[in-house]
C-alpha cells in the first residue's frame, strides 16, 4: 500500500509539473489582456461619424478584424493601405475591419477626433474608425502598440479571440511581405480549418495613454 501511495504521489507531481511547464511556456505572449481563446466583451465606441458602434450591431458578421491603429505612428501609416484592402476583401464575406484609435489625444494631438476624421477622409477608410475615449478598451485587450490586431470569431459563447498580433511578416515594407498571418487566420476561419499561427509580433509605436 505504501508503494502505491508513493507512486500516486509521484504521478501527482508529474501531472502537476506538466501544468506548471505549460503555464510558463515562453512562447505565450505574457501580459494582461485577452489571450487566444478568450471571449472579448462587446464594445460601444464613438465612430468618426459621431455614431456609437458595437459588435452586436453587425448581425450578419461571422467575426471581426479589430485593429488598434492611429494617425501618428509610421507603422500604422505604412499599414493603412493594407487595412483598407483587408476590409475590401473580408467585409462582405463576414469579417469586417473595426479600427480603434487607442491613443490619448492629450498626449498625441495628431490623434484627435478631428484629425481622425480628416485622415479617414483622405485615405477613404471604408471601415469604422473608433475613438477609445478614456483609453478604456485597449487595456482590456492588452494591446500595447499600434498597429495591433485581434481577430474575433462569433461563437455561441461570444466573440472569441482567434488570433493576436501582426498583419503580416513585414510591417515596414509591404512589397517584401512573404507571410500574411492575419489573412491566413481569417481564411482558416472561413474554411473551418485550424489557424496555424495564432500569435505573432511586430514592431509598433507604444500606445500613448
Amino acid at each position, binding site marked *: 500500500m505504501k508503494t502505491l501511495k508513493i507512486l500516486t504521489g509521484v504521478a501527482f507531481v508529474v501531472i502537476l509539473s506538466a501544468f506548471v511547464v505549460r503555464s510558463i511556456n*515562453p*512562447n505565450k*505572449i*505574457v*501580459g494582461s489582456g485577452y489571450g487566444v481563446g478568450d471571449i472579448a466583451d462587446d464594445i460601444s465606441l464613438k465612430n468618426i461619424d459621431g455614431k456609437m458602434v458595437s459588435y452586436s450591431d453587425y448581425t450578419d458578421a461571422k467575426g471581426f478584424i479589430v485593429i488598434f491603429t492611429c494617425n501618428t505612428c*509610421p507603422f500604422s501609416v*505604412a499599414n493603412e493601405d493594407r487595412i483598407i484592402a483587408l476590409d475590401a476583401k473580408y467585409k462582405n464575406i463576414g469579417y469586417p475591419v473595426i479600427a480603434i484609435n487607442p491613443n490619448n489625444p492629450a498626449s498625441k494631438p495628431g490623434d484627435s477626433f478631428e484629425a481622425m476624421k480628416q485622415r479617414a477622409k483622405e485615405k477613404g477608410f471604408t471601415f469604422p474608425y473608433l475613438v477609445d475615449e478614456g483609453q478604456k478598451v485597449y487595456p482590456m485587450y492588452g494591446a*500595447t*502598440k499600434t498597429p*495591433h490586431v485581434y481577430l474575433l470569431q462569433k461563437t455561441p459563447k461570444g466573440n472569441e479571440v482567434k488570433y493576436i*498580433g*501582426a498583419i503580416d*511578416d*513585414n*510591417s*515596414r*515594407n509591404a512589397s*517584401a511581405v*512573404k507571410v500574411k*498571418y492575419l489573412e491566413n487566420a481569417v481564411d482558416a476561419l472561413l474554411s473551418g480549418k485550424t489557424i496555424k499561427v495564432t500569435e*505573432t*509580433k*511586430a*514592431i*509598433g*509605436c*507604444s*500606445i*500613448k495613454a
Partner: protein
Amino acid sequence: MLIAHRKYKQYYTFVVMKFYTFIGLLLLISCKGGNQEIVSFENLEEDTPFITVDYEGLEAYLETSEAEVHVVNFWATWCKPCVKELPHFEELRAVYDTEDVKVILVSLDFPEQIERLTHFIEKWNIQSEVVFLDDGDANTWIPKVDVNWSGAIPATIIYNDEKRSFHEQSFTYDTLEKELKLFL
C-alpha cells in the same frame, strides 16, 4: 569613426550563441541548428554613421564587443518617446564610459527613409554607436530579443555575462542609471 568598419567587412564567424545565453531555454532550442554562416554587414562602402545589419548580424556584432555591460536601446527617429529618452542614453554613455559600459542604439527606421537617420545622428551629434536593424521579419527576431517584448518601442535590454534585464518602457536618466547600477 564609430567603429572600425573594415574589421567587420569579411567577418566570418559562427552565428554565436553567447547572446542567446541571456535569453534562455527557448532560444537554445531555436538555435540548435548552430549553423555556420557568413555574417554580412551591409552598406560598409557607403559613408554612413551607422552600420546596417539583419538580426543575425546584430547578434554577431554584439558578440564582437568586449565591454562588460551592454545597454541596447531599440528606437527610431520618428518615435517621439524614443527621441525624448535618447539624451539619457547619451549621458549614460558619457558618465560610464570608463566603466566598460557600452551603449548601442538600434534604429528601427524605415529602410527607404534612412537618410533621416543619418541627418538625425549628425544633427544631434550622437556619440553612442548606432546600428540600423534592417530586418523586416520582426515576428522572428522580436522574441529573440526578449520573449516578453510586445514589439512596442522604446525598448531596452541591459546585460552582462551573468544576467540581463528587459524594459518595454521609457526612461528618465535616474531610472536608467538605477537599472544600469544593478549590473555594476
